[in-house]
């Protein structure tokens, strides 16, 4: 893995470790019924995705094409970004460049201040979550309302999203009802989703009408046209930028696709992979500001250039944030998005988070059985489980894994590196397992055996049996 040495700054930020994934996951799995319910809800989405993908005979070709287009776009990213800027500017948009989250937040705030905008509606944008825009604006006295229903629910509850496409997937309808009752005074105990959605709609309508600016994310930015594409199911992005005069679109620099026609690949993959829909209800194209309005586009790096220059991890920037790797991940489904302590959870989050801060997120590459399902489901063919394995190499090299783990691997190497030691060790283990009382081999400190029995140890190893058999055959 020599490629890993050629960047020093990938993940070199040094915050204290977040709570480890296993600790948070164990809390989530302790409520088994809930973990099962969560698993089932996401598996349902994965199955919908399967049915949709199956209906497209050229599905695997589409994935390859998408991956190639992204690879090309990233290889030529500076040129495409500049082309995009020229084209967008030509149509009357203003393009801003932000090196990191802080700059991004400042740019957005300055724009709002200039335009005296106090009330802002925001449609779904993982980038603004990543930059922690909401708390920043709120600290400056600006009201920001997330208008995606799921995001609004988590915003009311003061939680981060637990999934990038389904932000409130971890919350049951009864809990939504309680939250709404508390915040917008819906009937107590009314769990009817239609009722709750209508109330939310009514409430959000007022916010839309009173908004002085609309912030959106971006799904695709087309270099050759300077146009933006925003996909939603609720139409909230469209409403949010049609009523106020000021539209601020925030995007990571990896959202660029070269040509308009490339959308024909990505639009087909995105919703099918994400929610098992043929297409999102709204796929809106924005070419410059609307008459009398302003369109500002903020291009954000925030660590992406470092990932791009990294031989092993650069493909992670292909990601179109469809969430399919989360829906398929057997660990994510049972541990919940919050167990990752990162805006983007699941397999892709576990690749990207350490690239921002390896120290803080050292446990994420290990929150994975290396089953490989994510790699096969990903519409842009990011080799996710290989990248997670590569991260483990990085973690070990930077000594970011626990000493106990490092020592046991060293021990393993010594014992397994010598056939006499191996045979003796194996014999001792088998002998011990057969002879020692169960309470001594299956105690609480033996994590394997807390909820699992150890194997029944055979008297003889394979090699002994094989020798005997050979002898018998020779005699």
């Amino acid at each position, binding site marked *: 893995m020599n490629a890993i040495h050629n960047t020093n700054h990938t993940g070199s930020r040094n915050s204290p470790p977040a709570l480890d994934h*296993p600790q948070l*996951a*164990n809390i989530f*799995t302790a409520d*088994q019924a809930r*973990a*099962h319910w969560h*698993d089932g809800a996401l598996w349902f989405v994965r199955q919908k995705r399967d049915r949709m*993908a*199956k209906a497209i*005979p050229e*599905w*695997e070709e589409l994935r390859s094409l998408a991956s190639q287009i992204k690879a090309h776009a990233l290889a030529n990213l500076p040129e495409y970004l500049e082309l995009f800027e020229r084209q967008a500017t030509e149509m009357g948009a203003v393009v801003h460049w932000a090196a990191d989250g802080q700059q991004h937040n400042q740019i957005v705030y300055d724009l709002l201040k200039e335009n005296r905008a106090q009330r802002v509606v925001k449609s779904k944008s993982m980038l603004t979550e990543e930059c922690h825009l909401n708390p920043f604006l709120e600290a400056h006295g600006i009201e920001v309302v997330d208008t995606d229903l799921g995001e609004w629910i988590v915003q009311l509850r003061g939680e981060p999203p637990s999934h990038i496409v389904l932000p409130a997937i971890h919350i049951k309808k009864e809990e939504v009802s309680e939250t709404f009752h508390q915040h917008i005074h819906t009937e107590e105990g009314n769990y009817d989703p239609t009722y709750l959605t209508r109330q939310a709609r009514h409430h959000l309508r007022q916010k839309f009408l009173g908004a002085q600016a609309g912030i959106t994310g971006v799904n695709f930015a087309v270099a050759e046209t300077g146009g933006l594409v925003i996909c939603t199911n609720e139409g909230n992005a469209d409403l949010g930028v049609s009523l106020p005069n000021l539209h601020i679109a925030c995007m990571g620099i990896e959202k660029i696709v070269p040509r308009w026609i490339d959308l024909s690949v990505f639009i087909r993959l995105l919703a099918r992979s994400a929610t098992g829909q043929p297409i999102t209800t709204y796929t809106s194209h924005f070419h410059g500001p609307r008459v009398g309005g302003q369109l500002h586009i903020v291009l954000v790096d925030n660590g992406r250039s470092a990932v791009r220059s990294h031989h092993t991890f650069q493909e992670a920037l292909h990601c179109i944030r469809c969430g399919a790797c989360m829906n*398929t991940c*057997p*660990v994510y489904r*049972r*541990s919940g998005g919050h167990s990752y302590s990162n805006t983007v959870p699941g397999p892709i989050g576990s690749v990207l988070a350490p690239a921002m801060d390896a120290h803080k997120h050292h446990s994420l*590459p*290990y929150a*994975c*059985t*290396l*089953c*490989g*399902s994510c*790699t*096969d*489901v990903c519409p842009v063919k990011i080799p996710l489980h290989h990248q997670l*394995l590569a*991260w*483990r*190499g*990085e973690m*070990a*090299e930077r000594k970011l*894994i626990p000493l106990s783990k*490092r020592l046991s*691997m*060293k021990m*393993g*190497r010594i014992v*397994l*590196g010598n*056939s006499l030691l*191996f045979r003796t060790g*194996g014999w001792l*283990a*088998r002998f011990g397992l057969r002879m020692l009382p169960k309470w001594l081999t299956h105690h609480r400190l033996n994590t*394997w055996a807390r*909820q699992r*029995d150890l*194997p029944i140890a*055979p008297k003889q*190893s*394979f*090699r*002994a*049996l094989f020798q005997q*058999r050979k002898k018998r055959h020779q005699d």
Partner: protein
Amino acid sequence: MRVGLFIPCYVDQFYPQVGMATVEVLERLGIEVDFPEAQTCCGQPMANTGCLDDTRPLADRFLQIFSGYDHVVSPSGSCVSMVRHHYEALFHNDARLHHLSEHTWELCEFLVDVLKVEKLPVRFPHRVGLHSSCHGLRELRLDACSERMGNQHSKVRRLLAGIDGIQLVDLKRCDECCGFGGTFAVAEEGVSILMGVDRIEDHVASGAEVMTATDASCLMHLEGIIRRRNIPLRTMHVAEILAGRNWQ
């Protein structure tokens, strides 16, 4: 044809019957297997932890021991994938590795791809659930993967389906991971157990009497949960069924 038998370390010590079944299957097909005594472990546990410095000496050892064979066969998809796909990162342009990675086979894949076996003359009159171990499935492509579309090969399933009397049950989730994952099983105990329990329940609900897999490691984890909870389900490695072992 010189065939070297590669028996993963934990199979050697804890599941000798899986190794013996592998020998019998191959010998019945006229293959004489050699078991190089010096072998220990391919280094996968270290590699999957990221400790490449601890992996290299083991991989190097493996290469020395097995380089001389025409083919190397193992009853473990996971360990074969380690050699075939992950040794590359440890050795640069080593001609021995080139030969070895192309000639190291998981048992079923060796039977189907090299020996062109269509059907094995054994009987197994039971309802069987096939647990598709992940590395065999998604790194060696031993069977169709549910995430992928279009035509795909099926090796393990086809071999099993050809056995007299066998009834392969339909699972609700045909290829979900069991939650073993090496050190994951211990480091992420909560999720690991839940995944294992879910797999077992799927097999039981589908009417399986026996759960089989290409990797004894998955079965070690699943069997551990089954025994702890007294669940009426037996585990057998694919090699044991292919060798015509009886239900005990």
